[in-house]
């Protein structure tokens, strides 16, 4: 069986390599993409949209419909993770530690409630307390990572980056909080409701801008028609439309990354994990 698999992999790999021989060379000026498509973008993007970063302009404006469904796909990934993994049953075993004495209590009945003050501490079975160095370093780093994520989203028009990357960086800063402290710290601050609302809001902002352009009399996602809403300098409306779209993508991606992480790492229970 292993041998057959090896043969099939070699065969398909060889066919793929054979197929790539027909592709134009890297940076070939005579390839179809360079002769018909790229010139138009390079010559007209700055005049039409006033966005210096051509990649963002193509992604968020010329191919905005495509990017909208990419965001929808990311949203669906989060939704699928939630529907497959979320487990609302109460947890079977719970562990508590009496802080002054260090005695551990093991509750097998999920209905049992502890008349707890501050002297009892809920414990994760698999989780090992993090080192103080890790906690301190992460506590200092997380705000900077988040500011950088916002910068990446806001500067998507001018420099590499954009909503997707910024959202992923913001989401990973929240995941870093869960890793360096524990999952409860994250779930307490960033609740499930908040994340779900944000994930849906991001997609809604994107679609809303498109529908807004339609209501103003243009095509779907044609930001140019939103210009009357802008008090001054209507030439920048396409750049601002792209910024709005990027913010929507960033919000959706940030929320979805955290939803996927929390659901995977806690088996959908949202109580304890890595």
């Amino acid at each position, binding site marked *: 069986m*292993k041998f057959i698999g090896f043969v099939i992999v070699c065969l398909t790999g060889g066919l793929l390599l054979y197929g790539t021989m027909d592709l134009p060379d*890297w940076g070939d000026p005579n390839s179809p993409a360079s002769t018909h498509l790229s010139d138009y973008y390079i010559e007209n993007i700055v005049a039409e949209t006033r966005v210096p*970063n051509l*990649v*963002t302009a193509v992604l968020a404006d010329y191919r905005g419909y495509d990017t909208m469904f990419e965001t929808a796909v990311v949203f669906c990934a989060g939704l699928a993770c939630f529907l497959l993994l979320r487990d609302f049953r109460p947890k079977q075993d719970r562990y508590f530690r009496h802080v002054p004495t260090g005695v551990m209590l093991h509750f097998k009945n999920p209905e049992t409630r502890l008349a707890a003050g501050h002297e009892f501490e809920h414990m994760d079975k698999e989780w090992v307390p993090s080192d103080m160095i890790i906690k301190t370093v992460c506590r200092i780093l997380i705000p900077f990572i988040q500011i950088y994520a916002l910068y*990446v989203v806001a500067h998507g028009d001018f420099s*590499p*980056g*954009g909503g*997707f*990357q910024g959202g*992923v*960086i913001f*989401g*990973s800063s929240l*995941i870093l909080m869960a*890793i360096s402290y524990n999952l409860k710290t994250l779930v307490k601050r960033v609740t499930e409701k908040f994340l779900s609302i944000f994930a849906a809001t991001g997609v809604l902002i994107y679609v809303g801008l498109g529908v807004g352009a339609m209501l103003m009399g243009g095509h779907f996602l044609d930001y140019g028609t939103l210009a009357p809403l802008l008090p001054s300098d209507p030439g920048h409306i396409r750049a601002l439309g792209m910024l709005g779209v990027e913010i929507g993508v960033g919000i959706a991606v940030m929320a979805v*990354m955290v939803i*996927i*992480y929390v659901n*995977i*790492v806690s*088996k959908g229970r949202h109580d304890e*994990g*890595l």
Partner: protein
Amino acid sequence: MLWPIDLIVLTFVIFCAIAAITVKDLLGTAILFSAYSFLMCLLWAVMGAVDVAFTEASVGAGVSTVFFVAAVFRTSRRTKD
């Protein structure tokens, strides 16, 4: 274009890819995938596709590694085959 850097990075990419499917320890595989993504990010950057390199670095080398580690944490660390 810097051909030697390109070739060195491509060699490492192939090494990482082969190592990732042969190593028995799935946590090691997750880290090897992370290294693979990072090397691909270098390749994109060398080719001038900075946006793609940025995405590869944040998604491929960053978040997807965390997801792999989380999945290994909740399943098993050893492969059967």
